[in-house]
């Protein structure tokens, strides 16, 4: 702490987050919001992916068309505009319909919804490819053992598919964490937003920019490490390298 004060006094490097109580508090809260937001959207997007991949196997063409339309829409439009669309347009529209004053969800809630749908669109494709990698003979054996369609998906197809998906899923989830910064645009108090507040108050743009950069690389690095461990522990023997 004294060292950072000395750094400021001697070299003009102003890292207020290490000695200013107020700045440190809000910065830690910002990092926590980023982690929280990432975690919730990761879980929701995986759920969307699993359900979407299930629906893509549906017997009805219109269900498959809807899922495909959802995927293509969210993949081929910018995530920032999706976020604005949900936060500004959908919120006004829905609160108008249900006559709710002051909006349905806050900025955090809409960021969760929008980012989950965005990453979920990619996850559906990833899981579907994983499901298709499961050999028919495995599914047929499950049928002959008397499993129902849902049970086959839950106990046979999905656990196998999940393991093949992991590298692709890994990439997508990392991308999702990086995309959470977009929530800055609708004033979700995540790391980048809080850092912006701090450098507006303290005039230490360069220092805070570097800190933010390092923080994101640490968070992303942690997820990469975690997913690689998971990938190794659930590896199918004889599959892959």
């Amino acid at each position, binding site marked *: 702490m004294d060292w950072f004060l000395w750094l400021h006094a001697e070299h003009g490097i102003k890292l207020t987050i290490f000695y200013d109580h107020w700045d440190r508090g809000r910065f830690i809260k910002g990092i926590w919001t980023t982690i929280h937001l990432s975690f919730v959207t990761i879980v929701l997007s995986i759920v969307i992916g699993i359900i979407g991949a299930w629906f893509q196997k549906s017997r009805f063409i219109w269900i498959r068309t809807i899922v495909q339309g959802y995927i293509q829409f969210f993949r081929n439009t*910018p995530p920032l505009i999706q976020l604005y669309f949900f936060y500004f347009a959908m919120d006004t529209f829905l609160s108008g319909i249900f006559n709710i004053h002051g909006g349905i969800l806050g900025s955090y809630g809409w960021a969760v919804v929008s980012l989950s749908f965005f990453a979920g669109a990619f996850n559906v494709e990833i899981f579907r490819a994983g499901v298709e990698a499961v050999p028919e003979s495995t599914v047929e054996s499950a049928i002959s053992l008397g499993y129902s369609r849902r049970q086959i998906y839950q106990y046979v197809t999905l656990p196998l598919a999940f393991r093949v998906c992991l590298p692709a899923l890994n990439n997508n989830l990392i991308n999702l964490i*990086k995309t959470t910064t977009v929530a800055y645009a609708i004033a979700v108090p995540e790391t980048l937003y809080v850092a912006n507040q701090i450098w507006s108050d303290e005039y230490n743009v360069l220092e805070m920019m570097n800190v933010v950069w390092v923080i994101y690389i640490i968070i992303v690095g942690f997820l990469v490490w975690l997913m690689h461990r998971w990938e190794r522990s659930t590896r199918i023997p004889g*599959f892959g390298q």
Partner: protein
Amino acid sequence: MNPLSHIINSTDLPVMKPFNYTVSAALQARDIVKFSLNKRTALVLILVLTAWLGIDAAYAQVQGDPNQTILQTLIKWTPLMFFGPPNEFGGFVLNITVSFIAMAMGTFMGLWVGIGQVSPNKIIRRASWLTTQLFRNSPWLVLLFYFMFLLPYTVEIGGIRYDIPGWIKATFALSLPIMANLSEIVRGAINSIPTGQWESAQSLGFTRRQILWQIILPQCIKRMIPPWMNWYCILTMATPLISILGVNDGMTLTQHALAAEARSEFLIPMYLWLMTWFFIYSYPIALYTQRFERRFTITT
């Protein structure tokens, strides 16, 4: 879609079938095209559109201003949102321009960093690896902020001051993550060429530089095109981020238009309208990417 796909696809599979998620997606995308060109679907679409126009006009009548239908408002603002303010560079055209320039710069830099990653020189290899990892793992928006604040607002060349427009700095910032990701693609492609190619070229007396530029890289191009196109799509989808930093792109102008109208029922159509442009631009590229990918996985 997945930069690792060529590695994953090329494995022997005792337990599972190959994992490649773009191939069958292409077939399904084709189904969608067929589905939407279907006569019945076209009829439904036309009916929905007519119904919407009718409701739109009726609603405007009820509101007491028949000249303010949603359709008319969209048409009124479209030139601004698309081409930017008169005599100024902006709008959706700016988004596309930024994506072109950033892609060109990113490809050029990424090629060199990627070659650096397979250099026999340890220092160059480590430095290229670090550059790649650093820019690959940091969020685009953070990079945008970083370079918008770091780069100067004006430069002096030969005593004359030139202003650097915000969008040029933004373009540079956007080219960096492209550089890092293409560097990985180049490295992966070079490593995917069998070592026999290197060895036979060596035995024919080629130097290392000649082998790389005349034998290895030409073979890599085919493998690099699908991921390269994919990254172009991702970059185009990231260009509205520059609106956060105050560049007059399509997104900023749409918000100005919405602020000028100040009517909440325009929100959904306007945002959807803007998203439609991005979709129309990006979806064919995505389809072609899938087609290329499928063609190349069969032949290799």
